[in-house]
């Protein structure tokens, strides 16, 4: 940088002033159009002939307040399941993806097993896995059978592990062979190459789709309630059955969205950062 004081030219100052004016204009236009659209929407909905009926059966504050404790305790189950299952599925997915990259005849059975797993569990509907594990397996009456919640969690981990394994594998295979050649030429072993060169790049590249699957998992963890445990949606269902009012569902829905917002925000941020890095900016 020059040590002489720099003064922008008249042309540059005119440009800067113009850009500032444009920015202010854009903000005003956006605010005005948002306000107009919002008003129209509110008028259309509240002016609808059935609005009062709908408000009573879906948006009753008293019922929401009564249902809140039950729905919240259900949501706590969702959150715990989400954290544990996401961690389990990420680990399982990474492990399976790594096993599928092993070369050599010794590893044939491992590769075949890993491939069979991803094919099976990506094809099987989650509900069927859940029923088999939570209803079928306890039927065996084996000693030391884990509780239904653990079995349900296992179903989620197995199903999502299959998806995540494919995401990880796509990432690993996207790393150019010249990176492997460079690492091996330095004397790094296959494992060191994976650990220090391939995986760090691969995981960075597939972080957005991985997080996207975690957001999807968040909605699916509630399905364990099919086997008995009470999650937020099931709690809302019970409350609805008692009051014949659908407000608890809306409550649960709002809580789910609130829970998802930070996760989705992180996903967007990571995606943006990955895109920036890709373009070398």
């Amino acid at each position: 940088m020059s040590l002489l004081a720099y003064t922008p030219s008249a042309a540059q100052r005119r440009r800067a002033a113009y850009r500032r004016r444009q920015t202010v204009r854009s903000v005003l236009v956006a605010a005005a159009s948002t306000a107009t659209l919002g008003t129209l929407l509110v008028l259309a909905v509240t002016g609808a002939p059935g609005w009062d009926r709908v408000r009573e059966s879906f948006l009753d504050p008293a019922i929401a307040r009564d249902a809140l404790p039950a729905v919240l305790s259900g949501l706590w189950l969702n959150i715990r399941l989400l954290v544990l299952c996401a961690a389990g599925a990420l680990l399982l997915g990474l492990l399976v993806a790594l096993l599928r990259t092993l070369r050599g005849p010794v590893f044939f059975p491992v590769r075949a097993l890993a491939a069979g797993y991803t094919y099976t569990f990506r094809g099987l509907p989650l509900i069927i896995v859940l029923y088999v594990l939570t209803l079928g397996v306890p039927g065996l009456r084996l000693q030391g059978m884990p509780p239904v919640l653990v079995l349900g969690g296992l179903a989620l981990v197995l199903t999502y592990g299959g998806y995540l394994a494919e995401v990880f594998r796509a990432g690993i295979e996207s790393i150019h062979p010249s990176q492997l050649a460079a690492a091996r030429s330095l004397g790094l072993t296959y494992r060191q190459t994976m650990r220090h060169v391939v995986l760090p790049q691969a995981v960075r590249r597939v972080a957005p789709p991985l997080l996207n699957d975690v957001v999807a998992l968040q909605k699916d963890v509630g399905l364990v309630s099919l086997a008995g445990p009470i999650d937020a949606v099931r709690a809302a269902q019970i409350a609805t059955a008692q009051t014949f009012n659908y407000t608890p569902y809306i409550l649960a829905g709002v809580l789910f969205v609130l829970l998802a917002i930070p996760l989705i925000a992180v996903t967007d941020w990571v995606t943006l950062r990955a895109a920036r890095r890709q373009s070398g900016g």
Partner: protein
Amino acid sequence: MAVLTCRGLRKEFGGHVVLDGLDLTVAEHQVVALIGASGSGKSTLLRCVNLLEELDDGTIELDGEEISDPRVDPDRVRRRIGMVFQSYNLFPHLTVLQNVTLAPRRVHRRARADAEAQARDLLDRVGLGAKADAYPDRLSGGQQQRVAIVRALANQPRLMLLDEVTSALDPELVGEVLAMIRDLKADGMTMVLATHEMGFAREVADQVCFLDSGRVVEAGPPGQVLGEPTQPRTRQFLRRIIEAGRL
């Protein structure tokens, strides 16, 4: 004693014979330049020496040890050979310093401080000390290639294999990389380099080998091979190079 001895190397890709009974000997402190048309097998030869390709026949000895023996651990061989690629192949997720210290730390199990001190010293010597903490995508092509050479040197190799290390560079950046190779020669490094820079081969090489049809067709001091070639195919190749204005 010879650092590298290749005897009767054969390599084919799906029936297409690339190396066909190739012989090559490189003495200690010697610089050997491989020249030849595109597709003549220069890169393939270097990759075979570094055991990145499996041979179809022939033997390779490094310091008298047969490294083409399948019982030899290739990782142990590769850490004694430094290789530099046309496309640099730096690790984009690691800083310059981390690129250079990766092998010393993970392969040679040197302490981090120790490896970093050595790396900074090497980087300083080639004028890249200020870039130690930069990521590769912030460097010019010439700087990236010099880092790649430093990364290979950090292993303190017996032999350096350089595969057209200036071909991907803008003309004004070629000089800085060639200067570095000149310094390596002055330090007595044994090197095999594939190159299209005939002027540089003439200046830096002790021996020039012309590859054609998978063999070394003509080998000798640069003045002889590039100046008074005896083989018709060498003459033909050089004529084409001169016509293209590259000599």
